């Protein structure tokens, strides 16, 4: 013989449940999202997209060079305060319909976590290597420059991640204006190393090659185009 006991419900318990229901009711219709393996929130990126369009009108080219599947390392030039890596990653994500993660987020609140939510990675070779091995598109920046048509040095340790992961490396030339919305992100063909190297020279030489490719693409863009010819001539120096 056994008895199953049921404790009486308490009035206080009912009140708490009712209060909880009232407070959580607004959340019922709130979309229940999640982030991806690296903390990028595709829904947030989508929600911020109109804001990005307000600031930049990016013309994207050369995306046919990028692999449809699999990882790839992209290297872009960056001008001081231009946020080139952010707008290029955002525009390339839209154009390729694949998340493009940019490298170089800081690791302090609130900027670090915010940039992580829109696809930022730390500038660490192991972080880049992990993403490339997981078939991600990763965009790293050349060293920052004051001139919009100058490609700075490329960190060879980050290129080394691509060498170790065995993924292709693509140059990306970016150009934007502080005065207007016009911006451009052009992906070049894959950079192939001139010589086969077994040691660390592979990444050093590949980094130099990528920098030259980006520089050549920037030279091909032509000079400043403000719409006022004398200003453009002056800018050409």
């Amino acid at each position, binding site marked *: *013989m*056994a*008895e*199953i*006991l*049921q404790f009486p419900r308490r009035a206080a318990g009912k009140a*708490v449940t009712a209060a*909880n229901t009232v*407070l*959580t009711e607004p*959340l*019922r219709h*709130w*979309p*229940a*999202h*999640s*982030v*991806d*393996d*690296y*903390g990028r929130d595709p829904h947030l990126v989508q929600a911020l997209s109109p804001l990005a369009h307000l600031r930049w009108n990016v013309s994207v080219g050369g995306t046919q060079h990028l692999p449809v599947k699999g990882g790839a390392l992209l290297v872009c030039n960056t001008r001081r305060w231009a946020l080139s890596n952010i707008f290029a990653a955002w525009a390339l994500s839209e154009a390729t319909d694949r998340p493009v993660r940019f490298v170089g987020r800081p*690791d*302090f*609140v*609130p900027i670090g*976590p915010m940039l*992580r939510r829109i696809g930022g*990675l*730390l500038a*660490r070779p*192991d*972080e880049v290597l*992990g*993403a490339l*091995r*997981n078939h991600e598109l990763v965009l790293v920046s050349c060293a920052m420059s004051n001139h919009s048509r100058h490609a700075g040095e490329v960190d060879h340790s980050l290129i080394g991640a691509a060498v170790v992961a065995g993924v292709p490396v693509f140059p990306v030339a970016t150009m934007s204006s502080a005065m207007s919305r016009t911006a451009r992100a052009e992906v070049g063909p894959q950079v192939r190393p001139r010589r086969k190297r077994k040691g660390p020279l592979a990444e050093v030489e590949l980094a130099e090659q990528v920098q030259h490719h980006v520089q050549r693409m920037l030279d091909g863009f032509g000079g400043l185009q403000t719409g006022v010819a004398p200003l453009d001539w002056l800018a050409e120096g």
Partner: protein
Amino acid sequence: MGGELGSLVAAQLEAEPWVGALVGIDVDPPRRRLRTAEFHLLQPSQRERIVDVVTNFNPHVLINLSVWEPDARTGLTHARQFTADATTAIVGAAAECPALESMVVRSGIEVYGRARNTPTRPTELTPVDPTTEYGRMLANIERSAREVGKRVGIAVGKLRLAPVLGKHVPSPLGRLLRQPVVPFSLFADSPFAVVEDGDAARAFVAAAVNRLDEPLNIVAPGAITASQAIVRGKRIPMPLVGPEWAIARQLSHLAGAPIPEHVVELMHRGRLADGSRALELLGFQPRLTTPDVIDHLYAWESVVRVGRIREVA
């Protein structure tokens, strides 16, 4: 074998054709019906008895799951003591077993730590650098197992589990997320990954079958932030910016859900890991993604009501 994870592993091992005899030790009786396994109810401090049981059985494979997560079943001080005692006794006994070929120990992704500028999603190659007491406890287990493995020449697999959540798994993270009002870090709101207890048990069995001899991350795919988890669970989010976390921890403790240091770290700095190598080495892939595990967490009934009082013959 008495805890939820231990019982699950034992039940799955019983179903394996390569397992002849099975012996388990724990401080609690098994939570499931085990048909062939032999169980010994022993405290971690009973080292002599544990060594006797293990050496008399002389296993081919030893799985050590005896990890007390702080504020899961006991407070930090006791958790540290029990874990250290159990590790000394079980890993020490393993070294005395001549037939032993392989040992699999439980660890956690807390061993990577979350210091500033540490990788967002560490792989097994990332150096171990724990930043919480729980992480240091797990690192000690790994070190002890590795030393014994080297000394007696056996394979030592270390499964670094993401926070384990399950129906009956005592977890401070699960308990916190199921509270009606849940605090989260407003400015950080970092992503974390978890793993379901059934998936974790399958990983242990796979590691034992394959005689794993290296560390391996066991993480459910995907990630979620605390605020997203709270919204999914229809809980009331309480955004915190920093100093008031101390008060929130005290209040949560009073409400029956203490928030240990490693869970606070998870809330602030996130806790992700790359679990892709488990598929390569063991052919193991978790069945549930992290958002699925969180959804299951909120789907569990708080109280199961069984109806009117009635007599049962």
